[in-house]
């Protein structure tokens, strides 16, 4: 259905896509993952020519869309796109957003278009909001309307460009839910996303993009559990970790906490677990001297479903927990209560404290 050959894209001197080759067939759900700045979104935007490729060829149902004679507008009608920032038409109501396409481009009557529009809004759960304007909707609602708008053109493929990245964590699932239901209906979709567990659940295939190419492609199980190539492995490893650098005792506790919360939500930790991690973090930072700065590393291993916390300090700090001196006993009691094990070691010029959290039922 989509065939991409030797796709290249430069922005001035910057080579974003070097040589992308892909073949996507009807009914497939492709998730594209990878570090920021590796051209995931650019690849997607090249598929419907929002970004003009610098070289290569793209075939949509065997029609070369880069051909000068190709009717790009017509091809785009078959290929919907959902944007990170929704881009609902601000001057139109929700219903008008989902009827303008069919009316102006498909010549449908107002009544016909409105009927179908209401059906679509019902499907995404927003029939109630038909007469509201986009500015009165929440981010999640906007994105669901954007999906309905996309469906109003009866596309054969939908391209999702980070559909949940601009949303509050609480609204991510309502949008993912709608995309999941589309997946069940067999819609062909290409999704650029940072929601790893979602990508794993919903996709038929995963593209890992790096170095301007599709660096590795595989089924979700393969790619997440057994990545073949080095960079993929590093990436998969990193998405399980939260790294945070603390430079002085005046660090921003709230910023750290919110990153921890986001990390917990990303991996669907229970509220209890999240609470424990936050508490452990706070107590540790009470006990540990921060004058030399420290690296904070929170890791989640899917295989063993273990959460571990690593603190790396300068070796000059000296051992803290194994030392004879008695630190703050209450804090120590809490830390011991929350962890399964605590090890402290000096490697080279670093003091490494590693804790494994107790599992919660």
């Amino acid at each position, binding site marked *: 259905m989509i065939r991409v050959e030797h796709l290249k894209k430069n922005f001035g001197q910057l080579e974003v896509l070097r040589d992308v080759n892909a073949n996507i067939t009807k009914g497939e759900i492709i998730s594209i993952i990878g570090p920021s700045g590796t051209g995931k979104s650019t690849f997607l935007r090249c598929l*419907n020519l929002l970004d003009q490729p610098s070289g290569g060829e793209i075939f949509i149902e065997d029609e070369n869309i880069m051909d000068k004679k190709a009717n790009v*507008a017509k*091809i*785009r009608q078959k290929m919907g796109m959902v944007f990170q920032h929704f*881009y609902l*038409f*601000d001057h139109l109501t929700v219903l008008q957003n989902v009827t*303008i396409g069919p009316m102006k481009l498909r010549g449908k009557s107002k009544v016909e278009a409105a009927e179908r529009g209401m059906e679509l809004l019902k499907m995404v759960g927003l029939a109630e909001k038909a007469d509201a304007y986009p500015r009165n909707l929440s981010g999640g609602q906007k994105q669901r309307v954007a999906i309905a708008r*996309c469906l109003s053109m009866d596309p054969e493929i939908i391209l999702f460009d980070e559909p949940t990245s601009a949303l509050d964590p609480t609204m991510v699932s309502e949008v993912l839910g709608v995309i999941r239901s589309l997946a069940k209906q067999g819609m062909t979709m290409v999704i650029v996303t940072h929601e790893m567990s979602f990508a794993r659940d919903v996709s038929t295939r995963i593209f890992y993009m790096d170095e301007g190419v599709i660096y590795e492609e595989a089924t979700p199980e393969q790619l997440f559990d057994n990545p073949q190539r080095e960079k993929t492995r590093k990436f998969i490893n990193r998405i399980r970790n939260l790294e945070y650098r603390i430079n002085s005792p005046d660090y921003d506790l709230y910023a750290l906490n919110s990153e921890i919360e986001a990390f917990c939500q990303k991996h669907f930790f229970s509220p209890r677990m999240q609470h424990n991690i936050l508490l452990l973090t706070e107590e540790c930072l009470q006990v540990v001297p921060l004058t030399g700065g420290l690296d904070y590393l929170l890791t989640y291993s899917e295989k063993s479903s273990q959460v571990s916390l690593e603190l790396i300090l300068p070796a000059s700090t000296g051992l803290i927990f194994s030392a004879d001196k008695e630190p703050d006993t209450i804090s120590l009691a809490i830390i011991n209560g929350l962890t399964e094990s605590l090890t402290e070691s000096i490697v080279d010029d670093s003091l490494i404290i590693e804790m494994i959290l107790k599992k919660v039922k």
Partner: protein
Amino acid sequence: MTTHIIGFLFLLATLFPGCADKDAEPNYTAASSVVASEKNLAKSDGRGMKDGSDLETARIGAMTGTIGEFYVEEHFLDAKHLLFDDINDAIVALRSRQVDYVITAYTTALLASRHNKDIGLLPKKHINEPAAVAVKKGNYELVEKMNAVIHRMKEDGSLEDLIERWLEQDGGDYDGPKNPAGADVPVLKVGVAANREPMCFVRDNKIVGLDCELIETIAADIGMRVEYMDMKFSALINALESGRAEVIVSNFTVTEERREKVLFTEDYFTNPQIMMTLKGADDMVQVDDASGLFAKIKKSFYNNLIRENRWKLIIEGLKATLIITLFAALLGTIIGALVCAMRMSRSHLMNGIARVYIDIMRGTPLLVMLMILFYVVFASTGLSAMVVAIITFALNMAAYSSEMFRTSIESVDPGQKEAGLSMGFTKVRTFIYIILPQAVRKVIPIYKGEVISLLKMTSIVGYIAVVDLTKASDIIRSRTFDAFFPLIVVAIIYFILSWLLGVGIDYINQKVSSAK
């Protein structure tokens, strides 16, 4: 020639019975109710009237481009000179003590003092140069023809009669031109500054006066009919040079400098320049006859609007103001949209042209642009002043509106365009259905302000002889010497118009928004 004027001034004396002052200079006893007598002059104690002894260092007002201006600049080097376009503005300045003296033609001063009880005249006459008709340089034929007529009028005494009639009895039984009418009669285009009674002014909404009767008589004699263009005195020579007018007659004094630019006919009248000043408290013996604020307003209302059907002038002016504003706004919006398209085009040439255009229009004062277009660019095309005004304001409006359109289009999130394109709209349709409606909404509040400011800016068209609302009030002021009432009336009218325009645009905005 001087004997003429002395004679007329003596005649004037009869008009002011019981006021003759035997001690004053004989020439001026005539109008001594307004000319200060020596014994009334006090030396700058604030009680009496200034006597002219401090002219060297005083603040002196003059009318732009008049002989009086040149005179004070030459003779009172240390004095501060202030220039006015209208005698009424000068009188207001005198009253508010921004100037100490105002130099103007004797006939004008006399009338001004008759209408304003607090204005006095100094007896000294400063210049005694004669006035003549000015003709475009090179047109010797016309000068000769006119000279022949003036000469004949001097011979048979009809010139003397004419002058006497205007100075004495406001023209007497004179009733408009007796020129040959009809389409085949050649037109003599005459530039005037119709704000100086009794030389040239507006009465019963017609331009009349000593100068006018003279030029109409001459024109009739040489088989032409007169068409007037009323403009600022300072713009008269420009009009002549650019060919907008063939002849100018407005109590135009003959000077060497002017001779370099125009041809003069034989002189026909001598009108000395004298100084007006404010009377002191001691001189204010006459109390204003209208008592009470309401009575004063009533009197002003009658004088400025009812008498001679002057309200008709206001209506005419209102029409001109509205026509210029509406057409300029319409045309300016259309041109503005084109300029905006050019400005946003990818072609460097188009973009460059649009940029230069916008910079020029925004970087030059509108009044200057108006004069350039009228006196230079369109001078030879014979386009009417009204049309030139509409074009000028439209061009100006286009420069501003194009930038307004551009910024409002650019302020629409680029994502809106991408969303439109990705749905399968073409670029053009994306613009029409998605971008434009959003841009229009953003631009309307600023656009409204621009149209209202356009309305107010049209008040400068008086410079190119269009009688708009402001010019109408100038004309009325030049007759009634009432500095405030006509101004307040037009200010109120402008305000109401602005308000109505604003409401109108808001209404359209609502219609447009709810239609979507």
